[in-house]
């Protein structure tokens, strides 16, 4: 949300793709990763980079292309990776990263490093031919890999139903003999348990697993007015800031399971969550604005 505020203020030159609402799966992936595991991300990588790093400032500095940024200002947002934390590659090209992940997975067998390769895509990326090609390669070569597909229903300004017929990933995976799993509900504890179970299977069987995760990218904006949409079209934001999301001491955007913060009420009292959020916000503000404050002293 702090990144969103900077985004709304048009402070970034690089195109930042926010992922409010994607935190539960990102946290779960982070928690099941071991030292030899590799993560391959897409342009919408912010939640995973933050989860793996556990800090905001190096990521924010990278968005500002500062030398002190996570990648020294050399990668910006859409390609942001962090090899020291197992994020080997992030691609801004839809579907481009699946095959690279298959090479990384094969490489683990060749150099005997072991470990699981995890690749992230969205519901738009599975429309690319490389998605099918890569599933075929992963299965044919018996490679341990998670193919995580975040289905947020949107690609830029169109919903799935506006642009294509339904893709049944269960059947698609099944046709290639690939195990399929479906996650939804944004419960990070449940996700961790399920991903841990699937990881054991993938490593023991030397087999890929296709994991479809239902997510809601929270926040939105309204498009320009047109004949078809006299009041402007509601668009789930994708490539810019979310005007409807505002920074507050209580960072909940939806009072239902689409919001991972709401789901945490299952484990914590609301007052506890509010205290956590307030403390975290103060910590991050101090971290992010320390330089600015120092400059004005």
């Amino acid at each position, binding site marked *: 949300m702090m990144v969103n505020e900077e985004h709304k203020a048009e402070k970034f030159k690089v195109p930042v793709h926010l992922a409010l609402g994607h935190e539960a799966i990102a946290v779960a992936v982070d928690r099941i990763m071991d030292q030899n595991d590799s993560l391959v991300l897409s342009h919408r990588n912010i939640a995973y980079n933050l989860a793996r790093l556990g800090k905001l400032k190096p990521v924010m500095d990278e968005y500002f292309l500062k030398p002190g940024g996570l990648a020294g200002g050399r990668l910006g947002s859409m390609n942001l990776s962090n090899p020291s934390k197992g994020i080997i590659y992030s691609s801004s*090209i839809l579907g*481009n990263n699946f*095959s690279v992940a298959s090479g990384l997975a*094969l490489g683990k*067998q060749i150099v005997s490093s072991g470990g699981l390769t995890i690749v992230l895509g969205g519901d738009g990326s599975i429309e690319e031919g*490389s998605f099918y090609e*890569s599933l075929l390669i992963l299965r044919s070569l018996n490679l341990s890999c998670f193919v995580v597909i975040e289905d947020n229903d949107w690609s830029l300004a169109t919903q799935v139903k506006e642009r294509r017929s339904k893709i049944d990933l269960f059947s698609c995976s099944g046709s290639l003999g690939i195990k399929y799993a479906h996650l939804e509900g944004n419960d990070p504890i449940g996700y961790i348990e399920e991903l841990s179970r699937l990881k054991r299977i993938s490593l023991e069987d030397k087999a890929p697993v296709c994991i479809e995760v239902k997510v809601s990218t929270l926040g939105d904006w309204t498009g320009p007015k047109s004949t078809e949409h006299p009041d402007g079209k509601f668009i789930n934001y994708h490539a810019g800031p979310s005007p409807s999301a505002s920074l507050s001491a209580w960072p909940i955007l939806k009072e239902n399971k689409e919001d991972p913060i709401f789901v945490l009420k299952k484990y914590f009292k609301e007052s506890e969550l509010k205290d956590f959020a307030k403390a975290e916000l103060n910590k991050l503000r101090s971290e992010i604005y320390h330089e600015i404050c120092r400059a004005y002293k």
Partner: protein
Amino acid sequence: MKYVEHINKVIRERIAGHSNLVLFGQNISAGSCISGLTKDLSVKGNSRIINSTNSENSLCGLGFGLMMGGASAVFFMKQLDFLTLGIDHLVNTYNIIRNMPEYYPGSFTIMPVIMDHGYQGAQSSFNNFSDICSMARVPGFAVTNKTDAEKIISAHMVSPGFRIIGVSQRLFNEELIVPDKCVFASEGGELFQYSDGQGATIICFNFSYPYGYALLRELGNNGIRASLFNVNALTPIDWEPVKQNVIKTKRIILIDDSKSQNLSAYALLADLYNIKLDKKIVITRKISDNWLNPVSDEMRIDNEKIIRELKNK
């Protein structure tokens, strides 16, 4: 020895004993093994030879992924035109690797066969190797004879980094050209000089070296001792050895058999703009040439006409 037999031999020598290696491509250890190019390859330990799926785009990504993970990969590709399916990785994935080389220690080589022997019809006759390499400034090397095959494959295949090494289908079953000598070879195998004469400077591009080699011999038979260069790398190179030679001969013959509108030969011509020339002969393909029907892909070069032009100072 045939051209393809020699290249196969050099590849086998290069990969022998190399560890953490993956050789892949369609039918590379089955059937004709890409007309003999990949015949009898063998690897040791964890290394693998994979008869792959027909998924050129993703196989390019597979190679880059192997490279990122620290392995060495070689993708043998049946036809250069298949590589157009993998251009995404050349212009996108490769940029990440060369931007952060410290994180990606492995090796990746794509070895496509340039379909320049003709009789394929309207499709499968794409020979613009320089275009593929030029669009993202990918290191690319054309292999045309015994000398450059040994130098380029030994220096680059399974070495750290990425490159494309192209071989010519037209030459596969031709007798291997063994140059009499090598006057000059750049360190990375980008530029070779095979003859040093005062009569003219012949410079060959793409896979036109055999035409230049034949012309050199014809000129010699007619009392004209020429210099012969072959430009193997298709990304910017140091033209100085060529320039110095042209200053001496003042007569150049450029041969470029690529079907591209934008020829590497033109890059050299632009660099030579301030050198006064007595004779400039540029031999390229014309759009009027018939390459859409199943015909021979040979360039027709009138050596006798060139000799007459050079003799008529």
